């Protein structure tokens, strides 16, 4: 498949990630959290809260959000943005489910810088 040739990487199966939970993919550039929501949507985000760098993969996943385990910031999994009134965002990575397998595009980081100071760009 064409998509496979463009930097997509097989990282595991959907059922390896607990529903309402997350697993971590370790990379040279840092950890990426792979989330699975109650309705089996999958999202991949940089595993670093924009507030104080907490590991988002360890938070409670609810709806399409995760609560950072350190200070309870809420991050929207679709946009990578902190939920208002908090401000900040984390990089997102494209992730796909094909035949129950999870594919991640490592070089596809989207949106905004990793630190709150840089803010987030909206497109």
């Amino acid at each position: 498949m064409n998509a496979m040739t463009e930097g997509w990487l097989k990282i595991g199966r959907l059922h390896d990630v607990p529903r309402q939970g997350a697993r971590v993919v370790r990379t040279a550039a840092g950890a990426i959290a792979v989330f699975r929501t109650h309705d089996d949507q999958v999202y991949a985000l940089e595993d670093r809260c924009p507030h104080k760098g907490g590991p988002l993969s360890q938070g409670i996943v609810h709806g399409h959000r995760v609560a950072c385990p350190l200070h309870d910031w809420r991050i929207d999994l679709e946009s990578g943005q902190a939920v208002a009134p908090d401000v900040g965002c984390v990089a997102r990575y494209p992730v796909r489910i094909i035949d129950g397998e999870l594919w991640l595009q490592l070089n596809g980081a989207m949106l905004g810088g990793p630190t709150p100071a840089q803010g987030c760009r909206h497109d």
Partner: protein
Amino acid sequence: MGKPKLVVIGNGMAGMRTVEELLKLAPDLYDITVFGEEPHPNYNRILLSPVLTGEQTLDQIILNPLDWYAQHGIRLHTGDPVVHIDRARRVVVSRSGIEASYDRLLMATGSRPVRLPLPGAELAGVVCFRDIADVQAMVAAAREYRQAVVIGGGLLGLEAANGLRARGMQVTVVHLASWLMERQLDEPAARLLQRTLEERGIAFRLAAQTEALQAGESGRVCAVRLKGGEVLPAGLVVMAVGIRPNTQLAEAAGLHCNRGIVVDDTLQTVTDPRIYAVGECVSHRGVFYGLVAPLFEQAKVAANHLARFGIARYTGSITATKLKVTGVDLYSAGDFMGGEGCEEIVLRDAGRGVYKKLVLRQGRIVGACLYGDTLDGPWYFELMREGSDVTALRERLMFGRAHVGDAGHGDPRARVQQLPDSAEICGCNGVCKGTILAAIRDQKLFTLEEVRAHTKASASCGSCTGLVEALLAMAVGGDHSTAPSKKPLCPCTHYTHDEVRAAIRDQGLKSIPAVMRRLEWKTPDGCPKCRPALNYYLLAAWPGEYADDAQSRFINERAHGNIQKDGSFSVVPRIWGGVVSPRELRAIAAVAEKYQAAEVKITGGQRIDLFGIRKEDLPAVWRDLSAAGFVSGHAYGKALRTVKTCVGSRWCRFGTQDSTGLGIKLEQATWGSWMPHKFKMAVSGCPRNCAEATIKDFGVVCVDSGYELHVGGNGGIKVRVTDLLTHVKTEAEVIEHACAFIQLYREEAHYLERTAPWVERVGLAHIKARVVEDADSRRALYERFLQSQRHAQHDPWAERAQGGAAHEFAPLETVV
């Protein structure tokens, strides 16, 4: 076909709050049109008083500027009230002739000031105190005339009098009753208030009735004549004798009105299902509310139904009043007069100008009337709203919430009003007074929850909640508290902790999705607040039957370690009673070296904490610790933590009993049980109390004749010394009482409620009745605890060392 049309009659606080709530729930559902009588955008009517005194400007009290309406696509017609509703055609007509059709109509027409039908009432220079135009008229009159008479010595009248006095007028208040604010104050408090206002130069005529208003040569009012003949010169007369729901339009449209527009618990009018009504124009269960807090609750419920969620209910509010006169502190709530079947606790200090009265019925606060020192008003209000048993607090009750201000704020008596803007209010998040006040003003915040969301003040440990509430009261007046008559478990539900627990038990609900379905949760799978609570309640209700949901636990309980700020974990093995052998110490040392613990620390609970352990190493660390005989210390859990002991009669020359041995037995009986919050115990060998048993959840102090049992202590945020539960003679009795107490706590406390606030909420008498006085009840609690322990006492570390929950600890993939 276009969107359904919503027409709002009334551009005031209740109407616009409903629209705001609606936009939050369903931003694009309706095409919205708003008609307002006044020529202004929506403003904060409560703050007209400080505008009158000159402390605030009109611009500062605007809640929604015109561009807010534009941004949300709302058509706004200001200065153009609706004069006719045609329910058959579903059309409203405004004074200027604009017609607007509706699918849903929201009436928020507010109230009208009562104008006494006195001779001369229609003269120029006679105003009410209701809207911006009234304030402008008063401000203009204050420039031209020297004397003013205010008719009515209630809340509004006194605020008007104070404002006019601040603008330099000589003011006399004429009041029909024999003391001021008789609907909110008893006579002693009213006398103190009167004295303060007299010192400011306001004169009073009490038990006095106005007979006529007299006109001067220009045709403007020039004097007020009282019954009895006295004539008070006046270039301005303010009538502030009360308000009446504005139901004219509703009545003309044939909607059933009884004082107000009659609505049901969904704020739907009883006459026409397409028409809703909120605010001061409403009569709900026969009650009419003139304060802002209930209006906001109504707004939430009406919005919920307009948004077609259809689940919210409004069941009425308890209200509290605070006078918005700078420098006058007055707070009243509930049944402050007392009477048959009530007790009164009164503190009167005329020298300091302080008067406090609490009215109690059957050990619970039903009313409060405070003058001169109102800092604790919100606390009393909370106790009243929750129906807390205050018997155990009684002797300290009048002196206020002891911890207000003591969490790093220096002098606990320092009044929040006197603090400089730079003073830190929230020590957890470093938020100072100035920041909070600025946020309240600039972001138009009204509730504690909003202040928490925007500033984080009191959002962590909560010990500064009282201070933040006081700031809120100071900034937006006494109507700040949203004061829901009951507090939902979290924003996902309307049900309280107790209601949720009862439903789980009585309806046999055995999973989180089952609870959410049956109780109509508003979110698909809850939030980080309700999921852990539900998981605990289910676990406590169905021991051995309910399958624990790891994804509904906070990371510490899911990973069985404490997450640290760098994402690593700490590991605390259980050290029974604090007694450890050299062989065990060597095993811990070996683990620390093998897994490169970054720091090894002795904890405050007589255990050893290994810091900086990588998450993926946890199962191996536990395997090594298990091999040496250790089990989890649950230092991360809402569970039994540690049992601190002194050496007691084994070594100490003062020891009366074997405190160490008893501590170990207690720990062995209770480890592994999940609780509403963390739970700490201690056993001291003599009354010197070296194990500090009197600040623990359950503390034992050994004495020569046996054992004193103490409960509900806390050494954390708010230090609380235990209450003495009872005295027993044998170790077996100690253990039975401890387990029964824990089980009662497990069954009755709210999730995340420590024993200290729980004991204060339900009262020590209740706990004694269940655990001490009734042996059968104690026995039954003890049996239920043992039953639950049979399923709880499995070491989670050993299970994971053998490969359980492996996905929790291993990365999904490692990419080089």
